[in-house]
């Protein structure tokens, strides 16, 4: 296998994270290629035709395809090799990484890399992962599938739709379905507060008079060939349906917007350590996992709410992967960064004390909290504190830690408190 095509860095996935990673690795002097299973680069942004992307990075309100185009063009202009329509079959580790791939031109072939950036994105939670009774008629979709059908393929999946879950994609699709002539009967959210951004409640639901029902959920799907209706129910504070509150809603389509799960199955054979809370690899601030040379970024690392931060993490991972591949293999000296009081999760999960560049830290609160303070503690020493008027779980928070603050310690703790 000595003739195997060999690269310094291979990036898996040509979505926003992968494109940014490849550009950063290229910029750092590495020979880099990207492998992408779809025909066109851009990842999920291809179907996110609504605007609001790029406010942080470009200070502009771009649509998803426009945001992607910025990086697609840069990758093309840099002459970075992009294998599209190419499926990754297997990933092995031997003196670096060996990828077994398949595409139309080369059938099954292998590529070798010193460092790997996994930018594989996330997938949607499906009806099998939420508890709904009933038969399995046609007309039950995830919001992302509906988005693809309408925006890429040009099919309207239904005429009268119920949306379960108030995630952003569901809200965006409520508006999109309405614009394309379907009726959205309502959005039902099991929790007492919406899980999508407030601006999407306004511009997707209120603009089009689509009702949002909080603390209600779908308990059954009716119909044998095609969805004919759903049963909805009020729920108590324990999120269990309240008997006697059941209501039948006639509809031909049920759309689920009930969460996203980072996609990392392909990494399992490498022995990567995953975080149960984020669903992504546990990494240090350079987004380096426990597997030497394996980096993670974007929605595969944790589900982001802004693509701008997906790109930012891609850049971090790509640059670090290039440095690893080109020989800066200083052994990391990692201490765990632990999420405590009121923190749902924190990324990175480790801080490398050897690395002397600012560390970007992302975290989410566990519940909505008003007037709280975030503390970053190393033993007795306060590394950082910051006040927040409000913390909401749908909105990810980002802080930057100055490396000069880092000192020898066994663990660093992040928490939110009054």
């Amino acid at each position, binding site marked *: 296998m000595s003739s195997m095509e060999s690269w310094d860095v291979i990036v898996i996935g040509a979505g926003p994270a992968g494109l940014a990673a490849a550009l950063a690795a290229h910029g750092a002097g590495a020979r880099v290629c990207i492998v992408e299973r779809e025909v*066109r680069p851009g990842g999920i942004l291809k179907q996110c035709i609504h605007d609001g992307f790029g406010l942080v990075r470009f200070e502009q309100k771009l649509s998803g*395809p*426009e945001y992607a185009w910025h990086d697609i063009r840069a990758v*093309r202009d840099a002459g970075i090799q992009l294998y599209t329509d190419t499926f990754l079959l297997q990933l092995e580790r031997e003196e670096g990484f060996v990828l077994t791939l398949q595409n139309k031109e080369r059938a099954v072939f292998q590529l070798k890399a010193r460092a790997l950036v996994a930018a594989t994105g996330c997938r949607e939670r499906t009806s099998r992962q939420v508890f709904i009774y009933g038969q399995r008629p046609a007309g039950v979709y995830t919001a992302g599938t509906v988005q693809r059908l309408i925006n890429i393929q040009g099919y309207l999946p239904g005429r009268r739709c119920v949306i379960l879950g108030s995630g952003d994609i569901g809200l965006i699709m409520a508006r999109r379905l309405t614009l394309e002539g379907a009726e959205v009967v309502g959005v039902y959210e099991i929790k007492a507060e919406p899980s999508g951004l407030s*601006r999407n409640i306004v511009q997707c639901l209120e*603009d089009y008079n689509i009702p949002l029902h909080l603390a209600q959920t779908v308990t059954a799907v009716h119909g044998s060939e095609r969805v004919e209706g759903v049963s909805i129910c009020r729920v108590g504070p324990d999120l269990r349906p309240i008997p006697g509150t059941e209501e039948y809603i006639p509809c031909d389509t049920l759309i689920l917007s009930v969460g996203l799960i980072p996609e990392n199955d392909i990494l399992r054979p490498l022995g990567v350590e995953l975080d149960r809370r984020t669903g992504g690899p546990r990494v240090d601030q350079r987004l380096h996992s426990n597997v030497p040379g394996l980096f993670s970024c974007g929605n595969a690392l944790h589900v982001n709410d802004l693509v701008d931060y997906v790109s930012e993490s891609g850049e971090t991972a790509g640059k670090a992967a290039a440095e690893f591949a080109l020989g800066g293999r200083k052994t990391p000296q990692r201490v765990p960064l632990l999420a405590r009081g009121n923190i749902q999760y924190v990324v990175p999960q480790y801080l490398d004390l050897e690395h002397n560049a600012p560390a970007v830290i992302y975290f989410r609160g566990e519940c909505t909290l008003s007037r709280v303070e975030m503390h970053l503690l190393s033993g007795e020493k306060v590394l950082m504190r910051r006040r927040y008027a409000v913390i909401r779980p749908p909105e990810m928070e980002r802080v930057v830690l100055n490396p000069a603050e880092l000192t020898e310690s066994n663990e660093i703790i992040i928490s939110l408190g009054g």
Partner: protein
Amino acid sequence: MKTLVCIECPRGCKLEVTRREGKILVSGNRCPRGQGYAERELVNPSRTLTTTVKTSFADFPLLPVRTDGEVPLDSIPALMERINTVQVSRRLLPGDVVMPQLPGTHVALIATAAMTALDTPASGE
């Protein structure tokens, strides 16, 4: 007094808006864009419209498009009807004009995606 949620960025500031002596007073905004948003929202709510148009290419059946400025919210259903009659028969790039002026507005409809394959020399950049 009226409460609004600013939609200029994902922060979604809660705005408290009061009219006093012909002026619109805004509080709760964490940046100056909130003031402009509240003023427009009270007088004439307007939005960027994003949708798709048909193309004549089998490998790219729908082209995503958007208005290159905001249009009145209540004009959107009529604009959708008009936009749905358009069919694109040229390979376009982001920013290329699909319709120079939407009826009753001063804004154009522009392409937001590249219909060319990556290795094709791009035109009109």
